[in-house]
């Protein structure tokens, strides 16, 4: 079906995207729960409902590729629901992959990228379909069994023993299915030339072979091949139609030194067990197709009934979806109003007008209320990111070969959208550290007398205007003395300083730039940001970080983060070697001056710009700061129909600065709107230059 995203009103698509994203997050969690509670039919049913709605909605919008994928996922869920196949880890894996793909497709709509199904998605679709086609599969296996007696296979000498022990039941089933389709099973041993492009070569090899058949397994396994972790010997077990096609594919690869292809007799692979099992199942499976259709119809009816009362609801609308963009705009506008307020305040301080003061007090009160309301609108529950954690942790744990339970608490607490977005990375990093360096391998845990399965607990609680998010693991913990030793080794602190440090201070050493406990960084934590970046990010948000740890008991890292924040788009300028932020809204333009463009008239320095005479002031002079360097840059500020230039040493760039409340002790300094903290941790004042010239001495 041809589809042009431009034909459908954008708001429908936006609505669909945002809804589907919520569904996908829930789906991920349902599947993860299902992995643990394999017999919980409720979970399957719930997942089915969600996928079904996605399919329905996508259908309405004509997004046929999403319908296809959702349909495939739905089929698998139905088969699971009816108990036709059992919930296994690999089925969950495939389902999760399918849902990941769905998420990517959804993202692509949002970005209006190509809506074609990509190869990869087709592959997953195929995988899903074959899972759902259990009945067909089992019939095929049964057929194979029958055929087997008649068929003679000229097996080449040599045995596939290495593969045999590693084949899972599913792999065997796949082979049986392939054989029934007239494919043959081949074992390929390769000796590769010793050259460096290992990752690329592995990819090319698997890709080429994948084109002519189905690769069942490889030694080393796919993951290690993909990471280039192999010597120059690789073995592959695959299904293909013709011997010659494999030969041809391999000949085309110049990095292969030697290869041997062996035809494998299926007897050698112990397929017999599967076939007999399948035969017994055939009868039971005969009615699956009808059953499937029936159930879907039931559910379709069910959802229709459930939806109707909702649609017929009273005309009152309690909620409307608002675009984040308009919310951001509103938020920025309020930021501007705050700026105006501070300007008015300065004026009122210099003119003793009681009416002005009264009006201003009223304005301030309303502004505060407006600010509060908009701030509240931007709050979203932490669950938004908490929902993604179980899935992420599962993947990390799997990669690290660890068994981990995750506990989440306090996801209902709401935080500013921007803060939620910003804490995702630091939080991920802390969790990754817990998985990689905290929780021990299962065997190690058993040896220590700990439960085999480790626990990572992520909890949030409110503390006034702050939320405390803690990541706690029951892993091996950190030893303050070890950390001190390491910090001295790395030359981060001197031994004498280390001696006077408390345990808490010692633990904080891990947040120093350049600190690493591992001599070789881990597979997972080697990437991404370090603890120093985590700490800086949290502090940028106006929060703080604390670490507790007891060796062999575990580690807890707590982030204290403000619930809300206000930002202002600003240009950072250098004034006498101090950095100031000027709100972008008050800036007209920025120019670099030369001797030629500036002159003095009647003692006032001016800049000639497009036939306009712009009076120039030096910001360092206005701020009464010592400056002997040349101020070449001019920030031009518009004032009614006139323009005024402010000279600065340098312009450093644009930034969304976070407004910090200004201490009572330094309030009322002309020109100073508020303070902010820059990326490197230094405090910077937010400046409104216009108020400076008006009241300049």
């Amino acid at each position, binding site marked *: 079906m041809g589809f042009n995203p431009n034909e459908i009103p954008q708001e429908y698509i936006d609505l669909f995207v945002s809804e589907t994203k919520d569904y996908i997050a829930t789906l991920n969690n349902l599947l993860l729960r299902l992995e643990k509670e394999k017999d919980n039919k409720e979970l399957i049913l719930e997942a089915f409902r969600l996928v079904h709605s996605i399919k329905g909605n996508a259908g309405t919008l004509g997004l046929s590729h999403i319908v296809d994928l959702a349909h495939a996922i739905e089929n698998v869920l139905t088969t699971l629901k009816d108990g036709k196949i059992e919930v296994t880890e690999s089925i969950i894996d495939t389902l999760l992959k399918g849902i990941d793909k769905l998420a990517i497709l959804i993202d692509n709509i949002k970005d209006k990228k190509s809506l074609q199904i990509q190869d990869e998605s087709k592959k997953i679709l195929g995988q899903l379909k074959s899972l759902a086609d259990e009945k067909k599969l089992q019939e095929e296996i049964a057929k194979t069994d029958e055929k087997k007696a008649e068929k003679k296979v000229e097996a080449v000498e040599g045995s596939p023993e290495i593969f045999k022990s590693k084949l899972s039941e599913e792999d065997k089933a796949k082979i049986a299915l392939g054989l029934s389709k007239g494919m043959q099973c081949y074992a390929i041993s390769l000796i590769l030339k010793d050259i460096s492009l290992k990752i690329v070569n592995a990819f090319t090899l698997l890709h080429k072979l994948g084109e002519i058949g189905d690769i069942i397994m490889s030694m080393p396994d796919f993951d290690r091949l993909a990471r280039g972790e192999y010597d120059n010997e690789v073995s592959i077990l695959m299904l293909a139609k013709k011997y010659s096609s494999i030969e041809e594919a391999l000949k085309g690869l110049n990095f292969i030194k030697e290869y041997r292809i062996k035809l494998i007799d299926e007897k050698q692979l112990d397929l017999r067990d599967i076939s007999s099992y399948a035969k017994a199942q055939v009868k039971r499976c005969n009615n699956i197709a009808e059953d499937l259709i029936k159930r879907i119809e039931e559910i379709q009816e069910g959802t229709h009934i459930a939806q109707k009362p909702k649609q017929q609801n009273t005309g009152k609308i309690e909620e409307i979806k608002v675009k984040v963009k308009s919310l951001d705009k509103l938020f920025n506008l309020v930021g501007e109003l705050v700026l105006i307020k501070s300007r008015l305040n300065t004026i009122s301080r210099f003119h003793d007008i009681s009416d002005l003061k009264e009006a201003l007090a009223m304005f301030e009160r309303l502004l505060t209320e407006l600010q509060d309301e908009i701030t509240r609108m931007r709050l979203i529950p932490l669950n938004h990111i908490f929902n993604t954690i179980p899935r992420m942790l599962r993947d990390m744990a799997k990669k690290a070969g660890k068994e981990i339970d995750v506990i989440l608490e306090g996801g209902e607490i709401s935080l500013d959208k921007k803060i939620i977005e910003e804490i995702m990375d630091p939080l991920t990093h802390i969790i990754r550290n817990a998985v990689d360096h905290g929780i021990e391998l299962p065997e190690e845990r058993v040896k220590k007398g700990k439960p085999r399965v480790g626990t990572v607990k992520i909890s949030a609680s409110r503390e006034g205007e702050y939320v405390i998010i803690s990541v706690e693991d029951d892993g091996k913990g950190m030893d303050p003395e070890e950390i001190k030793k390491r910090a001295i080794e790395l030359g981060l602190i001197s031994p004498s300083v280390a001696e006077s440090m408390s345990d808490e201070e010692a633990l904080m050493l891990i947040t120093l730039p350049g600190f690493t406990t591992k001599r070789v960084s881990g597979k997972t934590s080697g990437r991404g940001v370090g603890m120093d970046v985590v700490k800086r990010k949290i*502090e*940028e948000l*106006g929060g703080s970080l604390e670490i507790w740890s007891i060796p062999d008991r575990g580690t807890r890292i707590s982030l204290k983060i403000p619930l809300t924040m206000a930002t202002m788009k600003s240009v950072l300028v250098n004034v006498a070697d101090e950095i100031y932020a000027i709100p972008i809204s008050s800036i007209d333009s920025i120019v670099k001056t030369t001797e030629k463009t500036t002159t003095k008239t009647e003692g006032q320095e001016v800049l000639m710009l497009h036939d306009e005479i712009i009076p120039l002031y030096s910001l360092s002079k206005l701020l*009464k700061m010592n400056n002997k360097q040349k101020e070449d840059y001019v920030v031009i500020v518009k004032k009614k129909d006139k323009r005024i230039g402010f000279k600065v040493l340098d312009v450093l760039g644009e930034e969304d600065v976070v407004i910090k409340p200004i*201490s009572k002790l330094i309030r009322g300094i002309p020109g100073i709107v508020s*303070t902010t903290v820059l990326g490197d941790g230094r*405090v*910077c004042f937010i400046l409104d230059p216009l108020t400076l010239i008006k009241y300049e001495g």
Partner: protein
Amino acid sequence: MYKGKMHIIIFKLLEEYFALGLDYVKEIVCVDRITKVPMSPEYFKGVINIRGQVIPVIDLLKMLKTESKIGNSNNKKIIIIEFQDELVGIVVNEVLDVMEIECDKLKQSPKDTNALLYEYDGNVVTLLDILNLLKPLTQ
């Protein structure tokens, strides 16, 4: 004015010894960077960032105007004081001691009726009434 025992923190500003009641002290920090506050009284050393919070820092010597031997106390050790829900930092050269003292050992200063004196290690320490000292700043 003081009875029984009290905890004080003793510190050095240039060559002079001062003390504060420990109750007001929130923490002692070392910072690399103090941002100057433009167009503010000289005793404002600047502002610092402590865990995302912006805190003004004061040069006590300049505030007390003690015999105007205002050297450049360009130091980065700062005592953070909590006062009227606001945090204020005080630059010091050196923190010498935290100790418990008997209040009856405090003597009235002959020069300043607001200041109390205490003998520490053969030196005279001025116990500052920090609340009274900082109060004018908030008005």
